[in-house]
């Protein structure tokens, strides 16, 4: 007598279908959910330089023959970036290359103090630097 296998086959098809659904859900969970954000920054351009490698017009930020530069600014706060020779180590600059700030022989200050002072100066009309070493000073508008 031949046995009818249709119910058994149907049963296994349903079982396989259910297992597939479970596998699909488990794969979905394993994949996880992602979210993406952006990292943004705007690098601003300088508006003036003091460059001891040049001689000429101190009013334009170039260091003159007297080794002194005056940069005029009627804008908001500025920041200066100081680059001595090929060295880009802040610590080295701080220890070895202090600058005079001001036209009338202000006391020597480490570079980070100069940078901080300029950043805090809300409306500098004139900034003057007298360098003792080859130096490039770049001015930027600050964020404030």
């Amino acid at each position, binding site marked *: 007598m031949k046995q009818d296998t249709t*119910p058994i086959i149907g049963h296994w098809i349903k079982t396989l279908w259910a297992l597939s*659904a479970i596998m699909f*859900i488990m794969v*979905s969970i394993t994949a*996880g959910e992602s979210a993406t954000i952006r990292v*943004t920054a705007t690098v601003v351009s300088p508006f003036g330089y003091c460059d001891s490698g040049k001689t000429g017009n101190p009013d334009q930020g170039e260091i003159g023959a007297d080794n002194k530069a005056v940069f005029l600014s009627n804008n908001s706060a500025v920041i200066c970036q100081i*680059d001595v020779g090929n060295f880009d180590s802040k610590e080295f600059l701080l220890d070895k290359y202090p600058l005079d700030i001001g036209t009338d022989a202000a006391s020597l200050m480490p570079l980070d103090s100069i940078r901080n002072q300029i950043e805090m100066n809300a409306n500098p009309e004139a900034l003057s630097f007298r360098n003792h070493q080859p130096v490039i000073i770049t001015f*930027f508008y600050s964020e404030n």
Partner: protein
Amino acid sequence: MEMKTKSMALYFIIILVLIPFDSCLCQNANATHDLAFGDMFPGIPKTILKNSPGAAAEFTVTGTAGAEITIDFTLPTYMNAGGFNMQMVFSESDCAMDSSATPNQASPGYDNLDPWHTITYRLGFNGLTIWLGGKAIPKLRQPQGAYSATIVITVAYTGN
């Protein structure tokens, strides 16, 4: 008849298995704030602390309370603008999380987490808020421009 009874029992078991997994599908990761460095000056590195409101990256994660999840970041090493790169650094303590009803970014419940490695956490009823800081290092002659990169956070249930 016996076969039908067994089939019905099997379906009930399957449904019982599916219900908890189905509830897990409600997990959700949202980016609520970009990591924003703002204006930067060539040669002057800038750090955004993870507890800087409005500057640090912020994510929120929601899902089934009591379920364990893993959190993975895909972090960039550079921002890019017009073919120029600017280096980025994420330290081993640049991530923080808080699971309270009113997340406290200044004093998060979980601080100094390493975003370079998988973070495992068990969700509570209030979900999870995640903050990420970082550092950008422009070169001395970094060209001006609007630099950007993407951070991807992936949240997945562990099944535990």
